[in-house]
């Protein structure tokens, strides 16, 4: 039984295939990178995994269980957390309240949830801002909050959607470090990212997609040197 497996997943919007017969596997404990040019369907893949869109075809298995067709919140309860490319802070709640709400995922006790939230916030180095309103955070902190909130649901698999975009190089460095820390704590990660330095640095394996189809999959260097991938990014000569 594989940890996570997408079997020939397909998504049509109207007549357009945003994701087309895409199959891949993620092993427990790895950081799996998902790359591709703009509009290649990366975020759609995330939206399919966490049940935001229904699949047009194919199956998604998580720990041997079919999860396609389940509502988003149930998929989260099973252990798949996600962050959004366009961050969605709960604006009129404080940072701590944001994360506490998340931490209720496996408990009904306010004290337990709060303790968990504090722990996650410290882990994400956001503890000193816990009483700030989420609407007042800088973009870097909002991205951290996004990660913290998904971590507080105690995911086994975490989907990170462009968590580095728009950050300064220094913040990116901190982000990479944070993601490694998350993985080392036992969480498997699928990451969508545009910044190649980050991807090459972090990922154990990479898959590149274009027009919703797989171009290449393998170790970072292999994929980066793949002719199709280079063409997809730079265009044909």
């Amino acid at each position, binding site marked *: 039984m594989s940890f996570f497996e997408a079997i020939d997943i397909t998504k049509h919007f109207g007549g357009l295939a945003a994701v087309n017969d895409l199959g891949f596997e993620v092993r427990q404990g790895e950081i799996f990178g998902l790359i591709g040019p703009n509009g290649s369907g990366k975020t759609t893949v995330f939206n399919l995994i966490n049940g935001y869109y229904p699949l047009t075809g194919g199956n998604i298995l998580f720990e041997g269980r079919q999860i396609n067709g389940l509502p988003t*919140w149930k998929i989260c*309860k099973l252990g798949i957390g996600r962050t*959004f490319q366009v961050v969605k802070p*709960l604006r009129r709640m404080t940072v701590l309240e944001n994360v506490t709400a998340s931490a209720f995922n496996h408990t*009904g006790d306010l004290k337990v949830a709060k303790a968990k939230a504090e722990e996650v916030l410290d882990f994400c180095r956001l503890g000193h801002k816990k009483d700030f309103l989420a609407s007042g955070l800088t973009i870097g902190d909002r991205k951290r909050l996004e990660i913290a909130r998904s971590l507080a649901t105690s995911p086994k698999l975490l989907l990170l959607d462009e968590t580095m975009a728009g950050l300064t190089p220094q913040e990116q460095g901190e982000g990479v470090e944070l993601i490694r820390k998350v993985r080392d704590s036992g969480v498997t990660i699928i990451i969508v990212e545009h910044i190649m330095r980050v991807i090459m640095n972090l990922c154990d394996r990479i898959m590149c997609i274009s027009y919703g189809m797989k171009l290449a999959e393998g170790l970072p260097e292999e994929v980066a040197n793949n002719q199709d991938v280079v063409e997809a990014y730079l265009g044909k000569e």
Partner: protein
Amino acid sequence: MKNRSWAQLIAPLILLAFPLFVDSDYYRHVVIMALMWVVIGSSWNLLAGFTGQVSFGHAIFFGIGAYSAGLLKMHLGLSPWWGMLLGGPMAMAIGFVIGWICFRLRGPYFALATIAVGEIFHLLFKYFNNFTGGMEGILIIQTFRSKLPYYFLALGLAGACVLTIILVMRSKWGYYFISIREDQDAAESMGISAFRYKSLSLMISSFFTGLAGAFYMNYMAFIDPEVVYSLHYISIMAILVGIIGGVGTIWGPAVGAFIMVLVQETFRSSIFGLAPDWVSEAHALVFGVLVMFVILFMANGVVGDWKKITHLFTGKKQAPSTNGSAA
């Protein structure tokens, strides 16, 4: 903040002691109505202010509660006080069904759907006059001559309602409600079933609104569909009470209810007979203007923007507001 917690302690005490000092039936009646509106406004606010689902149909639950009491009397000859037991659960059940239908819709479309459902109830209760008494309504005889029992009952209801909301908002449910209000998609991805928790919020809300309706039947001794299912006098009033007091605050609707009833009574009596007669017609106008003013200049209502108001008078610069949060 300190002043406010004092107010929270003292206000209930004043309300408890009020009938000891005031034995005018009229003033007692005014406060009874205000307390009933505390229940309706707070209930609406739990759903709209805290959970983000703006209902234009709370008259449904008020009407169900009122008719639960009235119909028991009319058809079974039972005391309408049994309605106080039946009204809440009935309204809650109807609330669940309405939520099941309407929570597929978001934002203003949910609001529109609740108007439509409200009108459906209004018209059905008018039409099936064999069962409901139709436009003739239901008339009963009040159990008590004195206002006192009604006063303390209304106070008890208001207290129970506000206390329930305080407890709910401090629990997991409260965190979930506000998360859904702030961003439903984010909430779902945090493991929150938006549908389930919206339904829960609606059920608590409709339960208390139904209780208020059953109380109304017993207290006013007369109901008809035009009154208890009224879009303007119940559903929209509930919204206005919430807005004026402060959407998404615990005490806002309570304050809003008293403001609404006071404005209404002050103007209905032509400012105690001091103003010309036509002023007595102006209570709804004044209230409407007040609502517009509040939406424009105090988006968080009297309670939510209390700091802004006090700083207006003391001239201090206002601190960034942190209201609307769960804790």
